[in-house]
């Protein structure tokens, strides 16, 4: 690891070491994977971290790499009205089919999922977003949709602050200031719901004969849901 590299990473590594209690070995990727990799010389260039910096724009869930600068809810409100509301709605309710900022309260979201009724259409920052720093990341890199990457750092902090305020994220009151130390401390309401995949979750068997008794209950298209015509291709006669 180069010297300048260390400074970039020392913070993140220290944080990970504290947060996780697994043995050191568990962190290693299998270097054997590289055994068969060809040895190459004279291709490409070395590059300094300073040269990479303008591209090094990923803000981690825990706040690693968040930029200097700050933003306020009130400054964010103005930016939101001018550059965001036309797609995400004046109150974050979504407009013209673009995503909502504000969804069902998290307990209602959870209850809908448990009841097997539609929970996904009413997702928002208040029920299905894990960490405030990655909200800042998303907005700074990808929004406003028609001019991605054009917000200044302070503008991005401000509008991030405003949409969290709009979605009633606990702790983000009207006077809240968003910066690289305040964002990682925010507890997003949906965060406790995240679980990690644990591999295949179905176990079908390869039955070949008399696999079930009775008749299959066959459901054809419900009239109430969308229909699409594929024009000429549909129902082309076989030759």
């Amino acid at each position: 690891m180069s010297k300048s590299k260390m400074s970039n990473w020392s913070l993140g590594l220290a944080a990970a070491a504290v947060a996780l209690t697994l043995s050191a070995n568990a962190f290693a990727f299998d270097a054997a994977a590289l055994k068969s990799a060809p040895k190459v010389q004279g291709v490409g260039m070395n590059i300094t971290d300073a040269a990479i910096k303008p591209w090094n724009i990923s803000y981690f869930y825990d706040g690693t790499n968040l930029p200097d600068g700050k933003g306020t809810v009130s400054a964010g409100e103005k930016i939101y009205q001018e550059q965001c509301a036309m797609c995400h709605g004046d109150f974050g309710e979504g407009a013209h089919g673009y995503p909502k900022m504000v969804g069902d309260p998290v307990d209602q979201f959870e209850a809908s999922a448990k009841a097997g009724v539609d929970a996904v259409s009413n997702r928002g920052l208040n029920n299905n977003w894990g960490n405030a720093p990655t909200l800042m990341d998303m907005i700074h890199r990808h929004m406003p949709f028609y001019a991605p990457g054009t917000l200044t750092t302070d503008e991005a902090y401000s509008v991030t602050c405003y949409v969290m305020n709009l979605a009633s994220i606990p702790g983000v009151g009207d006077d809240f200031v968003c910066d690289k130390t305040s964002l990682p401390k925010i507890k997003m309401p949906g965060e406790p719901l995240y679980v990690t995949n644990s591999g295949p979750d179905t176990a079908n068997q390869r039955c070949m004969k008399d696999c079930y008794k009775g008749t299959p209950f066959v459901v054809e298209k419900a009239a109430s849901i969308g229909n699409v015509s594929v024009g000429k291709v549909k129902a082309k006669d076989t030759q």
Partner: protein
Amino acid sequence: MSENMINTVPEGTKKTGEASSDRRKFLRKSVALAAGGAAIAATSAANAGDGLKTWTTPLKNEPTRHMLGRGVVSVPYGLPSKYESGVVRRNVGWLTADTIASISFTPWQDLHGIITPNGLHFERYHAGAVDVDPSKHHLVVHGMVKQPMIFTVDDLKRLPSHTAIHFLECPANGAMEWRGVQMDSLQFTHGMMSCSEWTGVKLTTLMEMVGVDPKATWFYGEGTDGSALQRSVPMEGAVDQHGRPIPAEYTSHYRDAMVCYAQNGEALRPENGYPIRLFIPGFEANISTKYLRRLMFVDKPLVTYQETKHYIEVLPNGMVRQYDLVNEANSVINYPCPDFKLNGKGTYEIRGIAWSGYGKIAHVDVSVDGGKNWKQANLVEPVLNKCVTKFTLPFEWDGEEALIMSRATDETGYVQPTLKQLREVRGFNSIYHKNSIQVWKIEKTGEVKNVQIENV
């Protein structure tokens, strides 16, 4: 009835060519008298011309017989016949607010092999397709490495190359069918998947060049388009943001990853990430960042927008599952399918495609009676790792209603689930990874419909 044919006629009641002629009866008798070994030849003799209408009008020449055609390079980059103009990518207007953050579908109903022609590869954008100038484009590899490096596209082409045929599938393939039957076309039920020969540099070659720190457990790629899309990719030892391990099934896929510059032998198409893209065989396509400009090796996931909001499953216990990375075994019959109508009873060849993000396809079984009885289909070579495999099975249709379906098993023994099994674990709020057995219903009219079997 031939051993490897599947039919909708109960064994024992079937009489080949029921509208039989005297000639036919005669042949049957002689077969009965002949030695057993002659049965196959006799069957085909008995079938010759049997029960078919007769063409009597003298044949005419087609107009092309008496004219000159186009000269070479009249079409410098060749295009399909004008009669194939219906074979195109399509989108579904109501799925997304606009076409810039949207998806289009590959018309598998019109494809006959395992390769998707480049112009028909499905598209998925988060900020539209861009035209990146390859002479100005660079790839940076940095993070937990001995030496950060930067490469031009020509540098990457100079490095040892790797070529392999793999499918690439958006995990939303089939998403519209979770809650009920919706799309009456194979293009829309399974078209968010394409299969190509990919060429590029293996990720491990680049990892060796920059000297990745063995403590790195994740890396991510980032694109140079408006979404600057980024996704975290686990390596051995990866744990999530809560310290929970990523399953071992997912931590070695990166070994086959490549930075691609070619697709089916020619440069990537702008729609698919020109001039370079990341490609991780077997994983959901969103992770294979297009317009790739940066790879960073790290020791934790980013938990990006894509990982927190988009590519997650809302489970029936109210939890939200992350890092569902592999597209598990899937298959579908692409002939017959709702995009065709059967032209009378008799023999057809059931054909389909199967694929798995865990490895090779081991078997595909086909049922024509709603999943009560199955027959193993023939796999058409090549059968490759994380690649579309074509299967076929002769089918004799008796003109009655039939429920046809295919079920893939991959080399790990994973068997494609039924929709019921999938709904039992994922509920009705899922969007992604719907790889359940697809049922088509053949109507008496020969029309084919998309249906679901709910109880088995």
